């Protein structure tokens, strides 16, 4: 039976509601829309970024023997304003404060570090705890007022006293002015010293300690902008080989680059593209083939790409086609015209692996999200909704009816709410705990066996 230790078989066992964060009101303020979700390396911390430039970090509570049902709930640990809206006067360009991506650094000491980015600027934040404070200063009072030095007649040694835990976030580095176009990805290297940032046309390599210099490693800007045919949509470093990274394009291709081969990686080492049947080409072909997310498997052997209608798993050793293709919502193929008119066809869905790479997950519309088990080939559609939000309630699989006769409990394609899109999901690195962002709400689900 599935559900082995290490997070196996995502679609085989049952998922239960655990928690939901965020307001219930119908009127969603644009600033509250969640734009990124990311677990840290241990899964103890879960970070979200929103359109208002704010970051909220949740921490998993320690398992409590006196409250066996708390089962490691996530509660607010820290929140801060990461980015502010800006106006570039030279270019007449409005710079949104929306957090496009958050990536955690591996933990090296007591503090936690993460990178957060908007369209133009990447920031390194340090999140540290303070649970002690010094009391008994000589030169100032307990409330901080300076004491009159002439009144001091004796010296004392300040002592450390415990205080209520305070979590502080401070910006340690600001990596600015390196991107002409809009940043879509950041990725921390396995060397833990460098990271890359990618915009529509260029990819830069940074050292985490150095903010006034970055190396350009990919530049696909044509000499004549009229000749522009594709843009970079996502980029990621290989999880183990610090010289390897991939980037995906709006034309549905992925290029793997090796930084050892040359300083400027305009020429790829590998080129991944699935051959297309030319007779099936339509106006929509290129748009729906645009890759919105690319993620290496934890093993580093595979990578996964998400385009508008499907998720594909690629073996890094095979460039001419993916090894697995999963249909997310094929029924939308006959709705492409209206999806183009309401711009939904440009929605950028993300995808993620579970800890053991045996399952993958991605979002869809109507607050549905999909999970695929790579071993059993079974898939499941679940919904993030307030209706199924009772503690430990098992999520019921959902089904979209494509044909004429709609069975009970099925929902027809025309009834789907295209404003309820799940673009961002995250899977705990080792356990079967998932975080699903539904507009302004964050849902946390766990498997029943946990």
């Amino acid at each position, binding site marked *: 039976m599935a559900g082995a230790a290490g997070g196996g078989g995502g679609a085989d066992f049952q998922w239960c509601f655990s928690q939901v*964060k*965020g*307001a219930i009101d119908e009127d969603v303020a644009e*600033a*509250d829309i*969640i734009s990124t979700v990311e677990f840290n390396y241990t899964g103890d911390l879960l970070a*979200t970024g*929103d359109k*208002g*430039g*704010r970051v*909220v970090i949740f921490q998993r509570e320690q398992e409590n023997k006196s409250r066996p049902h708390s089962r490691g709930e996530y509660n*607010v640990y820290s*929140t801060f*304003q990461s980015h*502010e*809206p800006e*106006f570039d*006067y030279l*270019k*007449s*360009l*409005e*710079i*949104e*404060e929306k957090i496009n991506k958050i990536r955690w650094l591996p933990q090296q000491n007591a503090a936690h570090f993460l990178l957060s980015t908007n*369209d133009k600027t990447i920031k390194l934040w340090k999140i540290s705890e303070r649970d002690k404070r010094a009391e008994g200063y000589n030169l100032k009072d307990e409330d901080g007022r300076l004491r009159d030095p002439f009144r001091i007649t004796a010296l004392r040694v300040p002592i450390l006293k415990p205080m209520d835990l305070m979590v502080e976030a401070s910006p340690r580095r600001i990596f600015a002015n390196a991107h002409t*176009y*809009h940043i879509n990805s950041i990725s921390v290297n396995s060397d833990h010293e460098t990271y890359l940032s990618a915009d*529509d*046309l260029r990819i830069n390599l940074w050292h985490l300690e150095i903010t006034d210099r970055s190396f350009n490693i990919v530049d696909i800007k044509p000499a004549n*902008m*009229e*000749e*522009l*045919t*594709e*843009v970079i949509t996502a980029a990621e470093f290989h999880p183990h080989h610090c010289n390897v990274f991939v980037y995906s394009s*709006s034309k549905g291709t992925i290029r793997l680059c090796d930084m050892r081969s040359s300083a400027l990686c305009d020429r790829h080492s590998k080129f991944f593209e699935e051959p297309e049947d030319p007779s*099936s080409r*339509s*106006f*929509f*072909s*290129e*748009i729906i083939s*645009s890759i919105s997310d690319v993620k290496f498997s934890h093993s580093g052997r595979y990578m996964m790409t998400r385009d508008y209608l499907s998720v594909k798993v690629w073996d890094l050793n095979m460039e001419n086609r993916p090894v697995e293709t999963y249909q997310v919502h094929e029924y939308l*193929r*006959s*709705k*492409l*015209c209206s999806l*183009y*008119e309401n711009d939904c066809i440009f929605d950028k869905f993300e995808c993620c692996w579970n800890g053991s790479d045996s399952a993958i997950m991605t979002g869809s519309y109507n607050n549905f999200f999909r999970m695929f088990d790579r071993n059993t080939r079974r898939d499941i559609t679940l919904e993030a909704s307030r209706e199924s939000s009772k503690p430990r309630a098992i999520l019921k699989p959902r089904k979209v009816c494509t044909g004429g006769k709609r069975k009970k409990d099925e929902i027809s394609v025309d009834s789907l709410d295209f404003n309820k899109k799940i673009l961002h999901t995250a899977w705990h690195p080792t356990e079967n705990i998932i975080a699903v962002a539904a507009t*302004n709400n*964050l849902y946390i689900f766990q498997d029943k066996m946990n």
Partner: protein
Amino acid sequence: MSAESPEPASAEEQKEMEDKVISPEKVEEAKLKARYPHLGQKPGGSDFLRKRLQKGQKYFDSGDYNMAKAKMKNKQLPTATPDKTEVTGDHIPTPQDLPQRKPSLVASKLAG
């Protein structure tokens, strides 16, 4: 279960069946072309990409702004209606017209 076994379709009948099955994507394409006959010759090509690269572009003419500031000392100039988002064209933009982007002073409701 039918008592008779169906006759194998002839080659001609098969081709006729294939022609009738048009991909749903092509049906959608036909719908789009019918509604927007002038839609670009290069689908998903340069126009669409260039629009993507220009996201966030606002238009502000410093010359207009300074002229307006100078004139405002004497009289009130026509300013944009409050709900106008594009500050271009038929009136002189002033700093008050540019849509104010207030930073989020309110804490996130996820932390509430």
